[in-house]
C-alpha cells in the first residue's frame, strides 16, 4: 500500500506579522516556522496505517523554499518513509489551484492508495487544496475527517459537521482524506527517530517541472484589519488588575 501526505510549512500564528514589499502577502523573513497543525494529524494517520498493515510506504510532499525541508524532517522523524520537496521560493503566494496542480501532477502516475492532507492551512485557510487534488486525479475525497479507519481497501470515516454532529461515510481506496484537528494524537518524534530520519530519502524537484495551472485570482491588498477597539485594555501589576476587574464586574454586570 502506498500513501502520500501533503504538508505545508507555516509561520507560528503568534508571530508578529509584517506585510511584504509588494503588499500581497506577509513578509517571510524573521518568522518562526512549523508544520501546519492540520497536517500533523495527516502525517500521524499515515504512520498509523503503516503500523497497522506493515507494508505501507509513506511519502511526504511539501512545496516551498529550502527551509521547508526542516518541517519535512519532522514528518520523516514521525515515521514517513521518504520526502519529495518541490522547491519553490514563491510557494507562499501560490493559490490553492496552482498548489493542487503541482501535487496532482506529481501523484498522477504513482498509484497512491491513500492521500492525506490537512483540511486547511493556518495561514491561507482556503480549505480547497485537498479536494482539488482529488478532483484533478479523479479520486473521491472525504473532507474534515475526525475519525478514520481502513481495512486495506475501504475507508470508514467520520466528517465533523456543525454543532458536533458527525456524518459517517465509507469509500473504497484509492481516495483522499482531509484531516481535521482532533483526528488522532500526533506523536512527538523521539531522538532515535530524529537521527534515523536524517538518513531517509529527501529529494528535491523544481516547481516548474510540476506546475500546470495558473491562478484565477489577483491579490489587490494584504493588510491588517482595522481593529474594533471595543475592549478596554488593562495592563499592570497583577493584584491591582484583579481589583480593577472586580470593580468593573460590579459596575457593569449583575454576577457579583
Amino acid at each position, binding site marked *: 500500500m502506498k500513501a502520500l501526505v501533503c504538508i505545508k510549512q507555516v509561520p507560528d500564528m503568534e508571530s508578529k506579522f509584517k506585510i511584504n514589499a509588494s503588499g500581497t502577502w506577509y513578509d517571510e523573513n524573521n518568522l518562526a516556522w512549523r508544520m501546519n497543525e492540520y497536517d500533523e494529524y495527516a502525517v500521524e494517520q499515515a504512520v498509523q496505517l503503516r503500523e497497522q498493515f506493515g507494508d505501507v510506504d509513506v511519502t511526504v510532499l511539501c512545496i516551498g523554499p529550502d527551509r521547508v525541508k526542516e518541517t519535512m524532517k519532522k514528518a520523516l522523524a514521525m515515521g514517513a518513509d521518504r520526502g519529495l520537496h518541490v522547491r519553490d521560493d514563491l510557494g507562499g503566494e501560490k493559490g490553492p489551484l496552482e498548489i493542487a496542480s503541482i501535487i496532482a501532477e506529481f501523484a498522477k502516475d504513482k498509484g497512491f492508495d491513500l492521500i492525506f492532507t490537512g483540511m486547511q492551512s493556518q495561514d491561507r485557510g482556503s480549505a480547497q487544496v485537498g479536494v482539488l487534488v482529488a478532483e484533478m486525479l479523479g479520486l473521491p475525497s472525504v473532507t474534515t475527517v475526525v475519525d478514520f479507519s481502513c481495512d486495506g481497501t475501504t475507508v470508514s470515516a467520520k466528517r465533523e459537521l456543525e454543532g458536533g*454532529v458527525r456524518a459517517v*461515510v465509507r469509500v473504497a481506496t484509492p481516495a483522499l482524506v482531509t484531516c481535521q484537528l482532533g483526528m488522532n494524537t500526533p506523536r512527538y518524534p523521539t531522538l532515535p527517530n530524529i537521527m534515523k530520519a536524517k538518513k531517509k530519502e529527501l529529494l528535491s524537484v523544481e516547481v516548474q517541472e510540476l506546475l500546470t495551472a495558473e*491562478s484565477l*485570482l*489577483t491579490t489587490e491588498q*494584504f493588510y491588517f484589519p482595522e481593529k474594533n477597539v471595543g475592549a478596554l485594555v488593562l495592563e499592570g501589576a*497583577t493584584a491591582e488588575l484583579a481589583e480593577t*476587574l*472586580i470593580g*468593573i464586574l460590579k459596575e457593569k454586570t449583575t454576577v457579583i
Partner: protein
Amino acid sequence: MKIMIVGECRNGQILDATYENVAFAEKLGGDSFMFMVGTQAALPKYEGKLYLADAGECGEFNPEAHKQLILKTVSIEQPDLVVFSHSSYGWDLAPRVALALKAAQLSEVVDIKEGAYVVPACNAKLRRRLRPKSAITVVTLQAGAFSPASEPTGQPAIEPVSCDPSGAIEFCGYEAAEAAGVDLAKADVIVSAGRGIGKAENMEMIGGLARALGGEFAASRPVVDAGWTEHNRQVGSTGQSVSPKLYLACGISGSVQHMAGMKKSEFVVAINTDRDAPIGEIADVLIVADLKEFIPILTEKLRAL
C-alpha cells in the same frame, strides 16, 4: 450580476447558512435564484426560483451527485457567481464545482470592498482583498459575516432538478453530538479555557475561578482536542453556543469558530498575554496578563468578597 445561492438542508431542516447566503446576494444586488438538495416538506422562506433536488433520491450528503446537480443548474441559468456557506457542506462542495467550471474560488469571504472580496488570513489576524479573473466565480461565506436584516419570508417557485445519484462515497448516517452533560447555555457565568492555559493541570485553576463566580467552566476546541477537558464543555461552532451574562476567555486567542459560539455573551472579559489577539475585538475588557498569575489572585479576591 446573476447570483446562484446554494442552500443547505440537514436532516430535513433548512440551515441558517441558507439565509446568510441570501443576505449576501441581497447586499451585492442583482438577480438571484436558489439551488438546494432538500425536500418539498421543508422549503426555505425565499421569494424567487428554487431549483430543488430531492434529498431522498440524491442523498443529503453525496458530493458527486450534488456537484452534478449544481453544474446542471449552472448550465441552465448561467450565473456569474455561485454562493456557498463556508461550512462543512460548502467547503467540501465548492472546490469540486469551481474546478469543473474553471471558476476562481474565494474561501471564507467576510466582506466586499470596491467590488473585490475580502477573506481572512493567518487566524484572522490579517485580511486579503482578492479579485477574480474568471468568467464565473465561486465563493464560500464565513458563518455570521452576512446576517439577514429581517426575518426571511417568501414562497419559492420550485423547479425540480434530478441526476444520477450513484457516487463513490457511501453516506451511512449522522452520529449525534455527544450528549451535553453540562448545559452551558443556562449558565450566567462561563469561565472558558484556551490553548494559552498551557497544560491540563491548569484546568483546575479555571474550574476554581468558575466556582468562585458561581458559574461553569468551558473550553475552546484545542483544549478539548488535547484531552484536557470533555467535548461537552466545548464552546464554538463545533460545540455549544452560549450567551451568559459574563464570559471570561482565559488564554483564548479568538478563532472565528470560537467566537461564533460566544459572541452573544452580554459581557466578555479576555485574559491574554497577546494584546493583539482577535478576541480583543469582541471583548469588553482585555486584561494583558499571565493568566497563571492573574487567575489565582482574582479567584482569591472573589472568594473574600
